[in-house]
């Protein structure tokens, strides 16, 4: 019954003290804005990641040689769930010695041992950036050797010519699939011209001639996080053929295993980890890390959680300070209005009515502060999401909870001043100058 009156009373009182009200709200605004911004960014990130996850195979397991962190050098049994993966290792590390790499023998042993769980192995070997020439025309691209398993996780569409045959792999032929862009550059718009032609290419140290088998377009190139976009547009050769060109010894720092339908990729990743453990037991600097999409997802969530926790703590402090500010200003307001309180009591206001009046005022301050904070938070969150390249999606339940939360701050921190007002002796209050 009194609620509507109390709300209009509170708004009137705020309007007559605009500057004071705004300064009081500042802590609440900052706290709520921080919460909403992080929720928006987190929500956008989570949504984008889970959308990406739906496109890629959940059966993929990645195996990579990774540097041990300082703590791991002492105790390998402590496994962090993120597995200490450093993405810089994806590239051939110059500090890696021969004995640090995974060898072809290890991989074939692994396939023998875990064959019933493994569907395919995707190994790639990069020759790096190359310059190409055909009939006086030149282009630049990169060249990669890929095992048959590469085509299991990376869907390619042949636009002209044909796919590799088994012979290309077994006979280590210098054949290649070239991306559409490269074909257009060298052979003009009619990309079917490319088929069967021989292209010369040179890396930093080697020269070779390859026969174009077909022109392809990458439909999906695995996980965006694991496959650099440059890889989508590189020339693909059979793995062995590429390794022959730079006389690579069959050493790998990274490859991918695809679990068989019905096998648990997480279980497989554990088995693979166990398989490589003996090889690296005495290696002080490197070890093998095995990750699945689940663990990647875990890693991402963990990162997100860390950020969220940090910002939440900051927000909580801001809200606490804001709440104390509200309490302070309400105590001032109650003292200023002592005579008004006395008059209201003389006119028949019950203690509970006085308490409600001041509680509503504190809650309105916090609610308005919360609304302003939500607006700033969404703006900040959308901005940050765009900077990171994700479509922003503000969290609606988050906004509702934030507003309810800011009102409850008003309730908690407004209670003491409101109670002080309610408990005033009407005689003393009326006499107050």
């Amino acid at each position: 019954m009194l609620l509507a009156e109390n709300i209009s009373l509170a708004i009137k009182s705020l309007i007559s003290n605009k500057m004071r009200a705004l300064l009081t709200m500042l802590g609440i605004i900052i706290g709520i804005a921080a919460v909403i911004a992080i929720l928006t960014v987190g929500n956008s990130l989570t949504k984008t990641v889970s959308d990406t996850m739906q496109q890629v195979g959940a059966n993929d397991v990645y195996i990579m040689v990774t540097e041990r962190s300082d703590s791991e050098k002492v105790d390998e049994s402590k496994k962090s769930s993120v597995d200490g993966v450093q993405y810089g290792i994806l590239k051939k590390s110059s500090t890696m010695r021969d004995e640090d790499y995974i060898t072809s023998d290890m991989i074939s042993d692994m396939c023998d041992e875990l064959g019933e769980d493994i569907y395919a192995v995707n190994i790639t070997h990069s020759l790096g950036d190359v310059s190409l020439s055909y009939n006086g025309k030149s282009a630049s691209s990169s060249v990669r050797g890929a095992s048959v398993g590469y085509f299991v996780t990376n869907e390619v569409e042949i636009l002209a010519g044909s796919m590799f045959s088994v012979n290309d792999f077994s006979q280590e032929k210098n054949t290649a699939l070239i991306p559409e862009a490269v074909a257009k550059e060298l052979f003009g718009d009619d990309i079917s011209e490319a088929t069967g032609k021989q292209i010369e290419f040179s890396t930093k140290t080697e020269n070779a001639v390859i026969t174009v088998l077909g022109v392809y377009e990458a439909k999906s190139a695995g996980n965006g996080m694991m496959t650099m976009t440059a890889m989508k547009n590189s020339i693909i050769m059979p793995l062995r053929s590429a390794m022959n060109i730079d006389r690579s010894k069959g050493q790998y720092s990274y490859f991918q295993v695809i679990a068989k339908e019905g096998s648990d990729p997480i279980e497989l990743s554990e088995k693979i980890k166990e398989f490589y453990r003996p090889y690296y037991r005495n290696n002080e600097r490197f070890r093998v890390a095995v990750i699945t999409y689940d663990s990647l997802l875990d890693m991402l969530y963990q990162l997100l959680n860390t950020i969220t926790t940090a910002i939440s703590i900051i927000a909580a402090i801001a809200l606490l300070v804001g709440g104390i500010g509200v309490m302070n200003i309400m105590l001032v307001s109650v003292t200023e209005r002592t005579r008004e309180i006395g008059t209201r009591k003389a006119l028949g206001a019950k203690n509970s009515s006085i308490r409600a009046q001041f509680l509503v005022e504190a809650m309105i301050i916090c609610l308005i502060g919360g609304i302003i904070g939500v607006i700033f938070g969404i703006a900040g969150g959308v901005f940050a999401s765009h900077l990171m390249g994700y479509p922003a999606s503000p969290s609606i339940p988050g906004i509702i909870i934030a507003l309810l939360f800011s009102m409850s701050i008003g309730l908690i921190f407004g209670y003491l001043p409101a109670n002080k007002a309610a408990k005033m002796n009407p005689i003393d209050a009326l006499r107050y100058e």
Partner: protein
Amino acid sequence: MDSIIKLENIIKRYYIGQPNELEILHGISLEVKKGEFVSIVGPSGSGKSTLMNVIGALDKPTSGIYHLDGIDVGNAEDNELSDIRNLKIGFVFQTYNLISKTTALSNVELPMLYAGIPRAKRRERAKELLAMVEMDERAKHLPEELSGGQKQRVAIARAMANDPAIILADEPTGALDTKTGRLVMDIFHRLNEEQKKTIVLITHSPELATETERIVTIRDGVLYE
């Protein structure tokens, strides 16, 4: 005639049980009949304010019996005292005590708001009351835009809001010049004569008291008639 106010042997002490225990009212008995216009006169320090607080249900007596319109005020709880003040007593203060930043109309509505009267009814009655004190044209004005006499007229309209059993006026002309003070006193006389309102006027001025039908004097916590 029925008595509206009935005080029997009212004693009020402060600092009870402490070395500086102080007795302000020494067993006061007073009966005010319905429709009476009584003035309580006394110099400052006589216990006049304490007596007003007891009559106004702002304070409870240490001992003695107080009945207001048949209600036992002496033994009432806090919330009951609020209701008594709301429904049975209309306060008029020397300093007007209008709620600032709130229109004259809303000020008059306030006691009815606390009584839980619906908005439309409140508004209607508040307008009638303002018309009665010839303040209807200034209903939308804020207290700070009104003169002292105008404020006091709004305050009287507010005191009448819930049609109380008594009007308790504490030095209502104390802050006004003679002319506007006269105007305010005329309103009290009109309320007393036309609406048969019981009015208790508290003042230090014997002059003002002579206007009322009955004068009660308080000195050192004792009543003389």
